[in-house]
């Protein structure tokens, strides 16, 4: 008899001895809780305390494990009374699906609750491997939603809260030993941690920023196919997605087997897209395929020059208006107007995804017009400031002359 079995039997004996007294005090309590709470093996006793905070706590142990909670002996775990014990991985999806796939039942708790998780799961890499080759290592429902401590995604301590999803998926996908049979990379988690998406989520507190499940699906988790990466990114980056889909690059990338957006922006380590990605300079994505001598390279360089010129003019106008504001001049209207140039700059950067020089130029030209007006306002305001100083100097000189005259007058009167 190994130590664990010995401890289990000792615990059960103690629970049986103690149970009548506990039973008197808690006539309505379940026999599962009564026994398991007294067990010294954490594996068997921990679920009792964990379940108190589980979203399913009202269903009690028998909700999933079956058996008879009103039977205060080992007969409570009689298969004849519906006891199923610990379900096998293959049984988990149908066990959870008994309720979660039942629209009628789920409606009672939340009319908007989805009931397609099991169907989706069966389409996932996890579900299909489990079904086809009985891979016991893949994630089942309880792999991501730990049994006995399931909490809604809105709960920050939930394993599927947006801030915890990467860690939950990373338990397996970032473990090289665990993932070794599958021959897939295990650096996704670390790369994602360097991405703008994780930064927005964790640093900026934007819970709508994507984490693993937003691109891969959650219950239907699968790697996006090369041809439809754009659709995934386009869920949020709609305009860029549409422009790219209509561009000739979309076709070429598919032909070359390049993963759409991820070709330039990377997938898990999607860094903040800056103007340096455009053109042929250091760090430019275009330079991965184009050279200075190619037509595409020339277009990329021209696009970059246009955007740089608008950026420079925008910054100059913004700076002169800030200078005017700092000396106390009222330039808020001009600053508000300059917002249109900012919009044009964003539109020009967006238009880059159409790979059309004309489209970028159109936006840049509109922005340049706005910056010219704003800059002129700034210059005018600073000119006004100089006039004010001159006016002040003249006024003060006049006032001082008057004061001097008054002082002389007082002296004259008092000397008389």
């Amino acid at each position, binding site marked *: 008899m190994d130590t664990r079995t010995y401890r289990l039997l000792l615990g059960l004996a103690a629970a049986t001895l103690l149970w009548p007294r506990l039973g008197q005090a808690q006539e309505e309590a379940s026999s599962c809780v009564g026994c398991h709470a007294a067990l010294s093996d954490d594996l068997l006793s921990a679920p009792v305390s964990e379940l108190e905070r589980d979203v399913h706590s009202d269903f009690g142990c028998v909700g999933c494990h079956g058996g008879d909670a009103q039977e205060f002996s080992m007969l409570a775990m009689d298969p004849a009374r519906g006891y199923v014990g610990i379900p096998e991985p293959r049984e988990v999806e149908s066990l959870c699906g008994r309720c979660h796939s039942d629209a009628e039942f789920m409606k009672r708790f939340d009319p908007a609750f989805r009931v397609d998780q099991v169907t989706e799961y069966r389409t996932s890499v996890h579900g299909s491997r489990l079904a086809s080759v009985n891979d016991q290592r893949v994630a089942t429902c309880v792999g991501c939603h730990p049994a006995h401590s399931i909490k809604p995604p809105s709960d920050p301590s939930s394993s599927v809260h947006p801030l915890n999803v990467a860690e939950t998926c990373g338990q397996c996908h970032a473990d090289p030993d665990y993932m070794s049979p599958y021959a897939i990379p295990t650096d996704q988690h670390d790369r994602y941690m360097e991405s703008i998406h994780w930064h927005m989520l964790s640093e900026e507190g934007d819970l709508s920023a994507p984490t693993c499940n937003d691109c891969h699906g959650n219950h239907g988790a699968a790697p996006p196919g090369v041809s439809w990466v754009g659709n995934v990114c386009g869920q949020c980056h709609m305009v860029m997605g549409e422009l790219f889909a209509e561009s000739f690059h979309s076709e070429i990338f598919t032909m070359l087997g390049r993963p759409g957006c991820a070709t330039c922006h990377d997938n898990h380590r999607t860094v903040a897209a800056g103007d340096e990605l455009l053109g042929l300079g250091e760090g430019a994505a275009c330079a991965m395929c184009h050279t200075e001598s190619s037509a595409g390279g020339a277009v990329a360089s021209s696009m970059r020059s246009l955007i740089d010129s608008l950026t420079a003019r925008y910054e100059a106008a913004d700076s002169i208006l800030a200078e005017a504001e700092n000396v*106390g*001049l*009222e*330039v*808020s*209207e001009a600053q508000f107007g300059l917002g249109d140039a900012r919009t044009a700059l964003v539109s020009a950067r967006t238009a880059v995804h159409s790979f059309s020089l004309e489209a970028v130029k159109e936006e840049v030209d509109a922005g340049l017009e706005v910056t010219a007006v704003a800059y002129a306002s700034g210059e005018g305001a600073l000119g006004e400031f100089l006039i*004010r*100083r001159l*006016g*002040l100097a003249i*006024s*003060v000189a006049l*006032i*001082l002359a*008057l*004061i001097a005259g*008054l*002082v002389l*007058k*007082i002296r004259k*009167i*008092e000397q008389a």
Partner: protein
Amino acid sequence: MGNLKQRFSGVWAWLDERLDLAAVRKIAEKKEVPVHRHTIWYYLGGMTLFLYLIQIATGILLLFYYRPSAEDAYESVQFLMSEVHFGWLFRSIHAWSANLMIFTAFLHLFSVLLLRSYRQPREISWISGVLLLGLAMAFGFTGYLLPWNELAYFATRVGTQIMEAVPFIGAYMATVLRGGDDVSGATLTRFYAIHVAVLPMLTTFLLGLHLFLVQKLGMSVPLDVEREGGAKAGMKFVPNFLLRDLVGWLTALAILAALAAYFPAHLGAKADPFAPAPAGIKPEWYFMFMFQTLKYLPAHILWLEGEVVGILGFMLAGVLLLIWPFIERGSGRGEPSRVFTWIVVGMIVYIIVVTYLGYAAEPMA
């Protein structure tokens, strides 16, 4: 030249016949200002009056463009500041002059307290003066909201919320003042009406009374000078004192012009009731010592909320200040009181230190 003088004499004679200007001239010529080591403090009242007149003049100019509604107020001030010739100057002078006026009014109050100028028979002069200072602060509180910018909006919200803490009537008073449960367009129009109609009317009455009493009772000679046998010399009000007053006023005007040119009044962002309150909301400097004191008070003092105790304390202090001449009667009998002097010095030190701490403290979230 002779012709001009002749014409002026003619106009004077015409007016004198109808208005008895000679009597006024006689009073003016007769009026004397005592000369002693504290004479300089006499200029503070005139300086405050001059700044108030600047307020009226610039305020009227601002009224030409200001539109008192939540939709238009900010834009009208923005237009005034950026498009109207010298609009920025009038608004900046109005803002700076308001601050300087309250500053000189405080100095005037404390100089009167320390020189015991409130003593019999000048009790009513004192009461009207304290009330005028209260009105000046009310001018500041109501005028601050009028540009309808972000800081003013939230500062007014905090200010009126503090008022709610006054037991029994606070919530009612705050609701009436705001025209609702929160600061809104209704508050703006109410503050506008109070700022340009109610307060000027009350000020005109009280100021008239105050000046009449100064004229009737003359300048008070400080108690210590009086105990030494009174002022040894006098100065004619017209023209000697008045010309000196003019020097002070012109100096104030030059300072105002420089402040307006170098530190013009900012407008900031338009008030957005749905936006979160910006960090570092602070009241105007003359409310800071009260605001900061409330922050220092514990949540509860005995069975009362700390804030309520603080507000009741300030209300009590205001009443005591108003009836000060009736509490400190010794000076009326020519008996100086060191205790009262130290109380006044303590008040001045407290206001300066706590105001400084209010600005030095970390911005509020």
